[in-house]
């Protein structure tokens, strides 16, 4: 991560254009455009089944595209480019049959294309990432025995240990405790300040409201709204959502976060 903080959005990091994805023969996304720039936080929102998670799983290369393309730094995304990407899935998708400690899970974040073994300073970096998320005391604990919020923080640490230029999170606020929400807000603030891009799937904009620059609302696999997020909490306040009417001034207040996180 660069040392000098960057305050405004920079060049485009990731662009998904005309993204089409089919699951089990059914098209879920019907040509979605989304992009995120350095220092920008983009929230992908929408009702259940609208295709939010499918979109970001396609962007990070977990799901194959049936149409469209994903560009990173203006070129088609490669396995090598994914080294600059930190992905936080909604939960550990393949809960293993063998227990693993938080350190072991976070260490796997140091691997990637052309790097099948962790670097020499792995231990130091892993502990620093756990410390940053406030879970250093859980380093030797079995991840499976941790609470939902603690597990989420370990998964964020696994993404952060990569020093990502782009952090992609799938519903990180769902079912986690306040402390974990605060840790996530700090993480996103820190990343934004240092010029990283963020794409986050949210069901409700909630505590992240003041950090989100752009909201992209999906409805049945197409973008129904794109712009600054609304003042109100929740997706029901967003223009384009099927249960709402047009919102006149969706821009959030300049100050006054919904959740006070500074101590």
């Amino acid at each position: 991560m660069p040392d000098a903080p960057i305050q405004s959005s920079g060049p485009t990091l990731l662009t998904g254009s005309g993204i089409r994805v089919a699951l089990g023969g059914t098209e879920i996304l019907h040509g979605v455009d989304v992009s995120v720039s350095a220092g920008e936080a983009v929230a992908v929102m929408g009702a259940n089944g609208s295709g939010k998670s499918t979109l970001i799983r396609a962007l990070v290369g977990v799901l194959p595209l049936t149409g469209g393309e994903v560009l990173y730094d203006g070129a088609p995304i490669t396995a090598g480019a994914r080294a600059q990407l930190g992905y936080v899935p909604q939960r550990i998708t393949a809960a293993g049959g063998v227990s693993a400690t938080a350190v072991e899970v976070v260490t796997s974040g140091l691997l990637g294309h052309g790097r099948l073994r962790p670097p020499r300073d792995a231990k130091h970096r892993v502990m620093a990432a756990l410390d940053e998320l406030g879970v250093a005391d859980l380093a030797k604990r079995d991840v499976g025995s941790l609470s939902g919020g603690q597990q989420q923080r370990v998964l964020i640490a696994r993404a952060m240990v990569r020093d990502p230029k782009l952090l992609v999170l799938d519903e990180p606020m769902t079912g986690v405790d306040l402390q974990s929400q605060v840790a996530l807000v700090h993480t996103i603030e820190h990343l934004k300040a240092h010029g990283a891009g963020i794409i986050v799937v949210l069901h409700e904009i909630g505590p992240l409201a003041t950090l989100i620059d752009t909201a992209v609302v999906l409805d049945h696999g197409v973008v129904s709204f794109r712009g600054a997020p609304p003042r109100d909490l929740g997706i029901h306040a967003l223009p384009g959502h099927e249960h709402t009417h047009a919102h006149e001034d969706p821009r959030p207040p300049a100050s006054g976060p919904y959740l006070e996180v500074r101590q």
Partner: protein
Amino acid sequence: MNLLLDPLVQRMLIAGLVVGIAAPIVGTYLVQRRMALLGDGIGHVALAGVAAGWLAGSIAGIAERDALALPGAIIFAIAGAGIIERMRARGTAAADVVMAILFYGGIALGVLLIGASGGTSTNLLGYLFGSISTVSWQDVWVSVILAGVIIAIGIGLRRALFAVTHDQEFASASGLPVNVLNMVVAVLAAVTITVSMRVVGVLLVSALMIVPVAIAQLMTHSFDRTMLIAMGIGAALTLIGIAITLYVNLQPGALIVVLGVLTYAAVASVVSIRRRRKARVSA
């Protein structure tokens, strides 16, 4: 002690030791992926490979008709592991159905091929139940080399193999070669089964991969330590099992597995008693 000078005993102990160390390494990844029974599926395919090796040996007129049994087993096992992995990755069929088809197909093909080579199904018994007392020095060195490869890859790539078996989605998003690493696990399993076949037999080979891991899991929460402890337990079980059969007329493969199951029961009991005591103290 004089027994240790006997070349037969030396061969048995070396073959048992390398298999006892290598099998739980692969077993840790299979348990991690919740595919503990994969070894059984591949084992049965390997049996068909043994029979195919016999048939090839017969056709080629090789004096020792089982000379090609091991190469045959390796080829079939790797092919079987590859098929299982491809089907698992694509989700084209339920894993348990694929496994069942390999079970039945492997054993039936094995019996047919051994018949075609002029043998009978009794020729397969040594492979079904193990025949460690018949291993030659050549078998031992092949086992040592293959086990060495399994240990080197299984431990050397453990972080990447852990990443891919623990959370494939994250590994894929990180740019790790997920398909290649999955295939590495499958091929390691195939080679382990082939190497272990002579020690414990196809029917029990999976036990040697899984039971030490199950015991180790009762002792630690760490993935690395689970693997390490399982390797130690695997080595101890095979050495103790073989040593006992030097004095008592028992089948080594079966004894090794029974010792493993008894150890699991004993460790599980101790862990359970400790937990209850701990709960009582803190209550």
